[in-house]
């Protein structure tokens, strides 16, 4: 994978009818990267994609493609193709002609068109479907036609706007794997939009978490999951327990009246922070079981609920001030007293400053939903 910057968004701002959808957005996409824009509906991710595709013009800011400013370039002149949310296949054309659409416009000869269409259909596992009507296909098949129709033009960048949204869970999982394979094979840059955090974690090289028209964090799936930058990211990507606390000294954190060891340092003495603990990182101990710390220094709680979730049980542990979510492969009895043991590595500390900007944004989301335009 080459490390050249292919697309750069520089201070892109966009509003619809006075509602600001993107606020001075900066984003850089490397050549060959699989980037996912992740966020709740109305966060501006689809608008960002549509600006890159050329379907919306930014109000201000610049869009660069391979170093060239392309703000005003129409979609047909961009070396970018899109897989649309509801596929937008042409119902009056058969599968083969849908895929051939871009090639025919370029004036490719009939023989080459035929050859490349059948290659593409083979790639997406639809060999021999040329003469079928697109309306007779299942959702998953239509999805593949939409992908074939886009990549047959060999674009530098493929934009995918929640392409798996309309498929059922099993098919979605299959398509995730196939898209990832396709990306590795084609060495194209993929920019993928989704609100499904699991999809983002599974497929991406880089995840860009967005909310309220801004980028909250950009990083590898592992970084985003393990080191969320703020409360919103921690909450949106995966389940988490977020507890306010303070740092009495380096590598020590106090929350809910209990002091735990952690690995974070460099905070001011008694700085107010937020603690993130993933449910799967909480080890539940009965009285007398082995632990890293002495039992009397651990949080104690009561099992309130215990739900079977397939691979694990999801339990809510009541500790008086805070209800923890904990995952375990062992079910505990409701009403049992348990100790919460947490490995120092699994306690993630977030600065308060990032929380404050978040609460302001959450406030806006809740009290001024108009400003957060529905992306449809």
């Amino acid at each position, binding site marked *: 994978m080459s490390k050249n910057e292919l697309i750069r968004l520089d201070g892109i701002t966009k509003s619809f009818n006075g509602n600001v959808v993107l606020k001075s957005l900066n984003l850089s996409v490397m050549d060959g990267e699989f980037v996912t824009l992740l966020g709740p509906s109305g966060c501006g991710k689809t608008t960002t994609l549509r600006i890159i*595709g*050329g*379907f919306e013009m930014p109000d201000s800011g610049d869009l660069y493609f391979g170093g060239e400013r392309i703000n005003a370039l*129409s*979609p*047909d002149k961009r070396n*970018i*193709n*899109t897989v*649309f*949310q*509801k596929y*937008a*296949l*042409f*119902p*009056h054309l058969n599968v083969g002609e849908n895929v051939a*659409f*871009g090639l025919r*416009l*370029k004036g490719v000869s009939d023989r080459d068109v035929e050859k490349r269409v059948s290659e593409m259909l083979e790639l997406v596992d639809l060999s021999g479907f040329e003469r079928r009507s697109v309306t007779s296909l299942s959702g998953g098949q239509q999805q593949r036609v939409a992908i074939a*129709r*886009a990549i047959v*033009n060999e674009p530098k960048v493929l934009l995918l706007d929640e392409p798996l949204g309309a498929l059922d869970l099993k098919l979605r999982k299959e398509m995730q794997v196939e898209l990832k394979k396709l990306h590795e094979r084609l060495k194209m840059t993929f920019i993928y939009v989704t609100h499904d955090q699991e999809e983002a974690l599974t497929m991406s090289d880089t995840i860009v978490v967005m909310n309220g028209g801004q980028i909250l964090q950009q990083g590898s799936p592992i970084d985003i999951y393990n080191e969320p930058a703020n409360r919103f990211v921690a909450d949106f990507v995966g389940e988490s327990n977020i507890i306010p606390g303070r740092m009495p000294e380096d590598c020590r954190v106090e929350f809910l009246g209990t002091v735990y060891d952690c690995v974070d340092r460099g905070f001011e003495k008694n700085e107010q922070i937020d603690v993130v603990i993933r449910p799967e990182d909480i080890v539940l101990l009965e009285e007398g079981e082995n632990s890293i710390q002495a039992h009397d220094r651990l949080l104690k709680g009561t099992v309130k609920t215990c739900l079977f979730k397939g691979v694990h049980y999801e339990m809510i542990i009541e500790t008086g001030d805070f209800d923890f979510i904990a995952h375990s492969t062992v079910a505990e009895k409701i009403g049992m007293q348990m100790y919460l043991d947490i490995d120092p590595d699994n306690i993630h500390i977030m600065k308060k400053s990032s929380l404050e900007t978040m609460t302001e944004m959450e406030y806006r989301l809740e009290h001024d939903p108009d400003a957060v335009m529905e992306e449809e």
Partner: protein
Amino acid sequence: MKKHTLSRTYMILVFIFMYAPIVLLMIFSFNSTKSRSVWTGFSLKWYAKLFNDSEIINALQVTLEVAVSAALISMILGTAAALGIFSLRPRSRKGLLWLNNIPMMNPDIIMGVTLMLMFIFLYRICHLPFFALGFQTLLIAHVTFDTPYVLLSVLPKLRQMDIRQYEAARDLGASNFQALRKVVMPQIKSGIVTGGILAFTMSIDDVVVSYFTSGPFSETLGVLIFGMTKKRISPEINALCTLMFIAVLVLLLIINFREFKASKEREE
């Protein structure tokens, strides 16, 4: 049981009132004498006479010419208008659709008189010879009341279409015009044709607007028949009306068949 027979009788009466006159007219168009009440034998002589009457044939020609041209022009204008209105914001769209409905709701007599006054104004006051009452003014008038019908039959087709398809076409390298021609047009074509046929029947059907806006040498059949009924009532008219009725009936059947076919396709 009693209720059943009552409603059935009512329905039969309605149909008799609607269709008996037409059936009678059709039967008497084959009568061998001028009589409108006594059947004297089968003959095609009124049809023969009809086709030898140069005045009627001329009017028929004008009628068909104006109906076909008006239908074609309004197909273009109506489609363009539908595309434009469709891409507007909902509020302005509603406003324009309301304006579009005025020519259809407006009584023909008002439309005829106002158009005539406008043509006379343009011809006499503005000295534009083009607007002397004649074929061209007749055509303008027909286009005016035909276009809304085309617009209204194209608009639903556009609504059925996923507008992202247009974006998809642009995305795949089509220019604005190519996207319109290769993706939008094929999907609204049936609406345009239906609108055109509807416009054609509206033109054939019209008497009042034509009466005010045609010149002495561009009388349509409707206007001619209307004039004839004042002086001589010839059985030729029976024959003519029969032919016109059949022509319109065939067109209506075509429209219905097309809609039936389209709805069946949608179900599949």
